[in-house]
């Protein structure tokens, strides 16, 4: 089950990168830093994202305690959530929607803040707290188990999975492929959505049988 966090992160990492680089790259280009310095900025950004994810993990655990523990069959609710979120993910993948990455708003803030060190961290934290479908799916998965440690570890694995895709970003030359990556990422998110739709239906059926 914990590998699902990594898998979900790896599946959606391209989408995360595609939506968050419009913040990171202008910042890096604007600063005109070397690749090594860009890696430092990326580390700060990822640190912020990790903080955001762990906050999510805590919320996921609270949801599990308050709602799921009182239910006789978790499958019904988890399955229903899978279906709702997978539909959301598919809409997100196949239709033109505004980017749900919260860090986009930092573009304006960045111009106002005079402490450049904080910008990548804040951008990372906000992107980590974004309420976009991959995170919601991750939250549903994390909430399906009872322990706080599971929830935290699940989101940590999700963070690792998505972070791998951020490594090439400091090499700005690779950005030429961003448009294609963005499309591929969205399509992959759609396929993952279909997978979760199937998993959701199966889980609901199992939940109904369990009642």
């Amino acid at each position, binding site marked *: 089950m914990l590998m699902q966090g990594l*898998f979900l992160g790896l*599946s959606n990492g391209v989408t995360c990168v595609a939506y968050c680089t419009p913040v990171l790259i202008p910042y890096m280009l604007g600063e005109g830093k070397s690749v090594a310095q860009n890696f430092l900025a990326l580390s700060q950004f990822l640190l912020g994202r990790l903080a955001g994810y762990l906050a999510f993990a805590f919320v996921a655990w609270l949801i599990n305690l308050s709602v799921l523990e009182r239910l006789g069959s978790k499958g019904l609710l988890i399955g229903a959530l899978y279906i709702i979120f997978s539909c959301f993910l598919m809409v997100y993948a196949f239709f033109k929607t505004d980017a749900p990455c919260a860090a986009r708003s930092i573009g304006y803030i960045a111009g106002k803040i005079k402490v450049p060190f904080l910008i990548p961290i804040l951008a990372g934290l906000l992107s980590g707290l974004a309420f976009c479908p991959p995170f919601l799916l991750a939250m549903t998965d994390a909430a399906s188990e009872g322990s706080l440690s599971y929830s935290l570890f699940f989101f940590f694995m999700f963070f690792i999975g998505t972070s791998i895709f951020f490594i090439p970003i400091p090499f700005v030359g690779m950005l030429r492929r961003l448009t294609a990556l963005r499309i591929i990422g969205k399509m*992959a998110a*759609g396929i*993952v959505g279909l997978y979760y739709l199937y998993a959701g239906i199966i889980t609901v059926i199992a939940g109904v049988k369990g009642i």
Partner: protein
Amino acid sequence: MRTDTHQAPQGEGKGRTIILTVMMAVITAIMFSHGKIPQDPKEAIALIVTFLFANTLFFLLIYTGKTDRYRAVYFSTFAVALIISFISHMFEARGSMSLSEAKVLQCEVPFCHLVIPMTLVPMALTKTIIFPGSLIGGYASIASMFVLWIGATLALGRGFCSWGCFYGGLDDGFSRVLKRPVIKKINPKWIYLPFAVLLFVVLTAAAYLSPTYCTWFCPFKAVTEFEAVTSTKILIQTIIFVSLFIGLVIVLPILTKRRTQCAFLCPFGAMQSLTNKINVFDVRIDKEKCVKCKRCIQVCPTLSMSEESLEQGRPRITCMKCGKCIDNCPKGAISYHVKGTDVAGNNRAYRLLFLFAAFLFISIFSSHIIQDGIIRVLKLITTGSMIS
């Protein structure tokens, strides 16, 4: 747009064509026969027909200068022969096309190249091959397919999809049924879908150590083998692969005149596209000769030609080197090319180099399958059954 006269693809002279065909004939005679004349009349007929078929097509390919026209005949024949041969073999070995759990446990599932992308990451991580097939020996072993794939990749890159894939001939064939496409406009973004499918199947195969594409998506299970329907899950899988086969291999290729399965679904094709980067042959457009008539964009079966391609002088990375754009270019501006050489260089020599390698590959790879297909048809005619 300039309006110069049509310049048909130039073939070779009779002398050079004969010399090249004799060379091909000697190699194919040895490879097809394995150095011995079959005693069984049906096998002898199959050998002779396959030999003549291959070498006649090679002669025409070289002499007329038309690449795609004769390649497609061989390629589609290969696909049809595979279906006949494979299904007959399955009925002989198992009594049906369906795959039982026992055969999976015994690792007797034939391995095909489409599984390769899913095996690489788990192989690197766990040193195991996540497919219930035979490593060496038996029918379509894993090792033999890997050797063929590596050889074809080095020689052809994504050219494998037009000169080697034993499934590609199906949608290629169906894409030629109508003279004009019914559906003309296709969003070019769909060419990214195979890469998304590749990303998905590679990740899920690595996470679950299971060949996801084979289990859920492969349309060609409809004409090769499939799991016996014993549960709701398998029923859903069956509906998916049958729908994909009807939609992407038959209906859409007919309506669009494109190879829709290869262009919009196949993860192996996406992986092969990446190998185009390391392959020595590519297709190039001579910008000096190009009059931007966009005929190549209209005919490309995988949407690999775009207006951007015309500006850049090269097709997209997804080019399968089928030669359709080359055949259709009215100015002879598109040609096979050896990387690192001048685009306006000796294109006829580059074409011969590529065609010799590509044709040799498909003829050797397909010879046993085409021969077996012919034997099965002869058996059907003489005994009323294709199986022994």
